[in-house]
């Protein structure tokens, strides 16, 4: 591997002057406002709802709405809007006096404190409390916006434009069916869009593979593509998708749906894990490779996996120094990490520190304590299937250790009714499997829609799939297929959340960022209140009820509760997700006429 030290060049789009609190900056027209601000050194994009902690962005997904900034006349996720000439951006960073005064008391049980819930004091306090949460002011927004509702018909809808989604789209189009491909990113490709390393097991270089697939599907008359559009889920009457960019709500009319939403790198749980500069693994790659903006010069990568090593290697090539940490022992290491950077193993606790962004990290490990100076942190200890859409459908999930909650589906990638899954969301960690699964899901869907030609092809692919699974020793996929047959879910061997890097519950280690819920809050719910299902923990604290709708916190919360109470995560479970997966403005729903 060549290591070279080349400054990153080539930001997306053309220059645009934007104003942050009146200060003129240069951004680029095809990059999100958050990226332009970060590049210019403005890492704080807002304060949290309850504790008023400084927050930046964790991922670039439009669905993780951790902070809202005022861009123009609207409060938006700054990762969702691109820079425009003359755009004004404001974030309110003030902290109310009362919050400053009471901040040590403002935990998840503040309102249940004896003094606060006292009848007389409560009647006095409530008037203040209700105004103290840090939320956008409705009256600050302009009212001239309009939106539309459009119906789109297709034979099949594919959700997710990563490898498996692209393959599924191409396969369906080849069989003569119409297909609508929906992706929430600005461009197709999923992880291939920004992970520049080749895919193990696939001989074609990544770049060529992606280009080849894109060429094929864009050339097909059967394919329609909606990027920057979030599949908002299945209402009883219509499945829907929403484009914040076009302000359009799509009502989808299709005969089959293939869900290929891939994997999400969920946040790691450590002290001050909410500081600006803490990112998901894929976000860091997207920043450097797609938007060409460095997250920093020296970073900490949490977790040791194929995923984290790919990230480390790509950052290292750009001359960014890396410190890799994980819970694994150094001597068990089969990798030669020396080329990538420093490695600290046997880590027990991580504590990030910094005033407005990550400045340094304290690492407590079996051999003692190290302080390292870093300017960003990458969470890549656990990539979980993004199952929120399937969770809306009440589909059965099973927790598999080190894989996450996986929807129960059969070998034909069939979930139920007219719904199919493919790729990371189905619990497959390797791209080579995503490729085959995309094809199988497409063939199954086509077969279901009456395309007889799909059958012989499918038999062939299934054979290949079985072979690959045994070759790669992916036992858990067979476990899932077995559950479909037997209906039985075995106990898992879970004992420790892969994302957990604290030794005891901490007030500054967050699980839910939208609602400011800490590990200490959750431990009180588990130990003092005795609630041990995620549904009850949600109701006592509000975890999973914030703007991201549990996308980042749900699995962490479930695993943390399991860990504290010594239960199988299958017993603690998830909470039901509900449509829409991303918030849709009323003016779009009302069709812009207002009545």
């Amino acid at each position, binding site marked *: 591997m060549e290591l070279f030290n080349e400054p990153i060049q080539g930001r997306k789009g053309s220059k645009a002057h934007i104003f942050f609190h009146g200060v003129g900056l240069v951004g680029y027209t095809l990059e999100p406002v958050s990226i332009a601000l970060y590049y210019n050194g403005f890492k704080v994009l807002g304060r949290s*709802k309850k504790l008023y902690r400084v927050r930046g962005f964790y991922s670039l997904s439009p669905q993780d*709405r951790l902070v809202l900034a005022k861009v123009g006349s*609207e409060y938006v996720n700054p990762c969702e809007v691109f820079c425009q000439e003359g755009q004004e951006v404001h974030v309110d960073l003030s902290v109310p006096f009362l919050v400053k005064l009471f901040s040590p008391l403002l935990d998840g049980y503040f*309102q*249940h404190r004896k003094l*606060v*819930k*006292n*009848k007389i004091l*409560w009647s006095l306090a*409530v008037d203040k*409390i*209700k*105004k103290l*949460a840090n*939320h*956008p*002011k*409705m*009256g600050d*927004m302009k*009212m001239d*916006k309009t939106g539309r*509702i459009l119906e789109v018909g297709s034979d099949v809808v594919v959700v997710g434009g990563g490898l498996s989604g692209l393959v599924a789209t191409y396969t369906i189009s080849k069989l003569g069916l119409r297909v609508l491909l929906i992706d929430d990113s600005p461009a197709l490709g999923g992880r291939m869009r920004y992970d520049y390393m080749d895919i193990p097991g696939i001989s074609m270089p990544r770049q060529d593979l992606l280009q080849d697939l894109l060429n094929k599907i864009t050339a097909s008359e059967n394919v329609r593509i909606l990027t920057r559009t979030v599949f908002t889920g299945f*209402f*009883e*009457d*219509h499945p*829907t998708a929403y484009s914040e960019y076009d302000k359009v709500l799509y*009502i989808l009319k299709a005969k089959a749906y293939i869900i290929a939403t891939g994997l999400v790198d969920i946040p790691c749980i450590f002290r001050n894990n909410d500081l600006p500069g803490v990112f998901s693994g894929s976000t860091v790659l997207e920043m450097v490779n797609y938007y060409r903006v460095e997250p920093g010069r020296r970073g900490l990568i949490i977790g040791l996996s194929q995923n984290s090593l790919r990230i480390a290697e790509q950052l290292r090539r750009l001359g960014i120094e890396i410190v890799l940490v994980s819970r694994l022992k150094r001597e068990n290491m089969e990798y030669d990490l020396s080329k990538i950077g420093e490695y600290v193993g046997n880590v027990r606790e991580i504590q990030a520190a910094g005033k407005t962004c990550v400045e340094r990290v304290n690492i407590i490990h079996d051999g003692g304590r190290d302080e390292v100076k870093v300017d960003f942190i990458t969470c890549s200890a656990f990539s979980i299937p993004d199952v929120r859409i399937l969770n809306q459908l009440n589909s059965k999930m099973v927790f598999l250790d080190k894989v996450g909650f996986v929807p129960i589906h059969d070998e034909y990638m069939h979930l139920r009714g007219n719904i199919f899954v493919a790729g990371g969301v189905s619990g497959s960690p390797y791209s080579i499997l995503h490729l085959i699964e995309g094809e199988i899901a497409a063939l199954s869907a086509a077969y279901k829609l009456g395309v007889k030609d799909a059958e012989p092809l499918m038999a062939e692919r299934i054979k290949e799939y079985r072979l690959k699974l045994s070759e790669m020793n992916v036992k858990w996929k067979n476990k899932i297929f077995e559950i479909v047959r037997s209906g039985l879910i075995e106990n898992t061997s879970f004992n420790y959340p892969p994302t957990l890097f604290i030794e005891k519950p901490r007030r500054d280690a967050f699980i839910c960022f939208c609602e400011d819920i800490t590990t200490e809050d959750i431990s009180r719910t588990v130990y003092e*209140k005795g609630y041990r*299902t995620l*549904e*009850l923990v949600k*109701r*006592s604290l*509000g975890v999973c*009820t914030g*703007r991201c*709708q549990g996308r980042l916190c749900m699995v962490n919360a479930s695993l943390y509760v399991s860990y504290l109470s010594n239960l199988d995560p299958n017993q603690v479970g998830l909470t039901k997700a*509900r*449509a*829409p997966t991303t*918030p*849709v*403005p*009323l*003016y779009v*729903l*009302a*069709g812009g*006429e*207002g*009545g």
Partner: protein
Amino acid sequence: MKIAIVGGGVSGLSIAYNLAVRGAGEIHLLERNWIMYGSSTRSGARFRVHFWTEENSRFAIESIKRLDKLAGKMEWNPIIYRGGYLWLLFNEHQIERFKETNKMWSKLGAQGIFLEPGDIRERYSYINVDDVLGAFYGPQDGSFHHDYVCFGYYSLAKKLGVIFHEFTPVNEIVIADNKVKQLKTMSGLVDVDVVVLAAGAWTNELLEKMGIHLPTEPLRKEVCLTEPYHYFIEPLIIDMNSGAYVGQTLKGEILGSIDYPTPPGLIKLETRLEFVIRWAKAISKRIPILKNARIMRTWAGYYMMSADNSHIIGREPGWPEGLYVAYGYSGHGFMMAPLVGELLAENILTGKIPELMKPFLPTRFKENKLIQEKLVIG
């Protein structure tokens, strides 16, 4: 005495607590899922004392007093807050009706205020009053945190020794010699002396197995919730023209719903886009500033509607001995449950029927003494 309560919603929890606090003996509460799973946790979390009928209004007034009193004792803060209800009225008939009924409410100590369109604009500048003729404001009405109310009752009851059986569906009530004898559950038969059915929308399944039919049916209701915004909508606003309502939770989310035709029965608890669109249209017309709000979540739950939109508590003399019901709240479960628990506990333990409970007995349907409550919201 061994008492079993079937249903772990707010109704069952309040009854369990009230029985336990009176030292009723061995109390078991059986819930088919987790505590408060059914309709309680899907509540819109509002209470009012303004009903068309004196029976319901009086009942609600007394009930909220009980909850208020209990609030200090509960381990959880029920977050009681009196933001008021604001009914927007669109014709003389509606105004007349409210004026007439306000006399009764005044008598009960829950006098409301009439607002001219100008007053409305002054107090709630965000409401579009172009087509509004007036409004009735009920300052005694308000909100609470439904989950915390349930948790509050749950922890109080638990401390008093109530035995909870979660994830334990009751399949049948075994009767012998015209007396309740046993409950049939997955884990076997449980001997009981008294059974209180407080299983909300699922109560009829059990009653019908005993040949008892009461004129009730579940009706699915859907609710929309927006992202949180800085608190500004004080009252729950009910648009008497479109049938929409909207309010803001103390957390900042804007919550609302609208009348939308739904077939009765235990249909799937899903939500419809058509419903969301209808609400969005009605609300952005009434409160134009809300056009910018974003709908974050929708969900559905059942109102267990009775023939006269009022709860059913107690028993009929002809029923097997030891069988009681508390259901059919018609969307008013949280408002009525605190008092229902108290009255029913007294009734079970003393055999006497408290005055406040009399209008709500199940016998009223046979005797044709319906309550005629017509003011149902949502």
